[in-house]
């Protein structure tokens, strides 16, 4: 455990913080000091405890209706995490299916799926989300659906390239020579090879999904008020910037901390899987050697931190 921390602090710090927020979200009922929806108009717009006029009764202050901000943030973490994780699963599933199918079959299947992915790239995800939510209404379910659908092509592109290269490897040929069916080869031989890259990509995408969810809530297209979501708190805070800047800022800090933790965790995972960070035990390096190309492609898509090539040269 200590060794892992020394080798990969990003993974541990990021992962630890994410775990903490998950625990807080699960046990929100026990942790939150107040009911997040309980209004108390006498105590409205109270600043946080450390500002003049604040009190320890409401550590982070209260909003326009006198609701306790800390409690609202704690409950809001539930929606952010849930939407982020569920929509990631959905888009990962669609993208994995499309990418594997296109990469494995090639030919016309590939053309159709990948051109569809290209076309989807020309419709910004926020626009698609706005259109769908405005048409079918907000709410957690619809948000997960539209966020999941709006990002599938990112997975599809990465998985497509990987599948095509894995497919040409000898063990796939061998399996097919033994008479293994396509489905068996895909499930047994191809998908296991994709797992590391998929894990990293999916982790980083959870962060993107959470940002997207808060952005939609901020535009008034997320989970409708009075639901306590971070985006809603931020949007309410925008209207009170003059008198109560702490409302917007508390939600902003919560968002950036969670997203930063997830990004750190994702980058840590990438280093963990990446053979070129030389601190890995040799057997694992050999096992993950195939990832070189894929990681590069991934960096292109999500903006790599490029630590890896540096180490390779040393």
């Amino acid at each position, binding site marked *: 455990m200590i060794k892992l921390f020394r080798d990969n602090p990003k993974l541990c710090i990021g992962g630890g913080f994410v775990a903490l927020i998950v625990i807080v979200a699960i046990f929100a009922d026990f942790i939150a000091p107040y009911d997040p929806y309980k209004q108390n108009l006498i105590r409205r717009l109270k600043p946080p405890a450390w500002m003049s006029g604040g009190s320890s009764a409401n550590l982070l202050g209260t909003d326009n209706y006198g609701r306790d901000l800390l409690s609202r943030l704690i409950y809001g973490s539930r929606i952010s995490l849930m939407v982020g994780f569920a929509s990631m699963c959905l888009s990962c599933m669609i993208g994995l299916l499309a990418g594997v199918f296109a990469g494995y079959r090639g030919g016309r299947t590939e053309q159709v799926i990948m051109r569809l992915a290209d*076309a989807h790239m020309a419709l*910004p995800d926020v626009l698609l989300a706005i259109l769908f939510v405005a*048409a079918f209404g907000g709410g957690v379910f619809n948000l997960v659906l539209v966020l999941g659908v709006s990002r599938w092509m990112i997975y599809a592109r990465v998985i497509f390239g990987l599948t095509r290269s894995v497919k040409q490897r000898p063990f796939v040929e061998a399996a097919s020579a033994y008479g293994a069916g396509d489905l068996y080869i895909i499930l047994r031989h191809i998908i296991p090879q994709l797992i590391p890259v998929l894990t990293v990509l999916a982790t980083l995408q959870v962060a993107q999904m959470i940002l997207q969810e808060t952005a939609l809530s901020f535009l008034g297209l997320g989970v409708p008020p009075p639901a306590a979501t971070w985006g809603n708190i931020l949007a309410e805070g925008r209207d009170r*910037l003059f008198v109560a800047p702490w409302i917007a800022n508390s939600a902003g800090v919560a968002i950036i901390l969670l997203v930063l933790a997830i990004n750190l965790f994702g980058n840590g995972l990438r280093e963990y899987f990446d053979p070129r960070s030389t601190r890995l035990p040799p057997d694992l390096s050999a096992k993950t050697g195939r990832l070189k190309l894929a990681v590069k492609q991934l960096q292109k898509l999500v903006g790599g*931190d490029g630590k890896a090539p540096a180490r390779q040269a040393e």
Partner: protein
Amino acid sequence: MFMLVARRLALAPLTLLLVSFVCFVVLRVTGNPVDIYLDINRTPEQVAALTERLHLDKPLIVQYLIYLRDVAQGNFGDSLQYGGPAIDAVATAIVPTIKLLLVALSLAVVLGVVGGFVAAVYRDRLPDFALSSLAVTGQSMPSFWLGILLIQFFALKLQWLPTSGSGDWRHIILPAITLATILLPNFLLVTRSAMIDVMNEQFIVTARAKGLSNLRILVRHLFPNALNPILSFLGIQVGTLIAGSVITESIFAWPGLGRLIVSAVFHRDAPVVLAAIFFTSLTIVFASLIVDILQGIVDPRIRR
């Protein structure tokens, strides 16, 4: 090279068709235009006239084909909010958006490339650590909160810049910074890793060994080779930038395309939504085409 461009050009109409079809279906399925155009006191004659005019009695696919025919003639329909042709509303909004996009893009590209270069040169030392950490933090920053922070600090506290709206050059500063920050961290990280990749190449060692000056190595050998990954990243990120402009424009009440789309969606102004999304997709398609061509110019190996 020519083939590449030709293939991309051939795919562009297909992309636009797909995008417009999805939007058309979503808008038509969810809201009956009769309820939107006409108030409660409508007469059956009015309903009949509108149904006739919008071809609502025909199947959806026929409606879409009629819409396409009209679009081909430059007719995007009339706006419900503004009364005039939808295309006029889009045309007025597109200029501020392009202005904002260009300023933000140049900001992100210049700062990102310079920052990435500095980080690459000082790899694994303090400047690299500082810049990379800043970039990862920037990646996690919700742009709408950054916008709010900027308003708090520069507009409310220091009162140097206006909080929102448009007018003289001072209005564009905060929105442009907010929008640029969406791309800047990614640009910095991609540039950094591209530069480091190239620095490890043999021909750089050769150039050093030949005794070339650092400046010449940078301009002739390093930069041209690192440019390609940066450009291809730019091509992917055009959509992100435009998506970001929707949110940025909403924060700062910038009178652009993004704000037009959001308000049109809220008012169920289908013709404006369709026209605006059409032009947004067109912009993205053409921007990535330009990036492809630039890549071909920069890197002869791509000119297949």
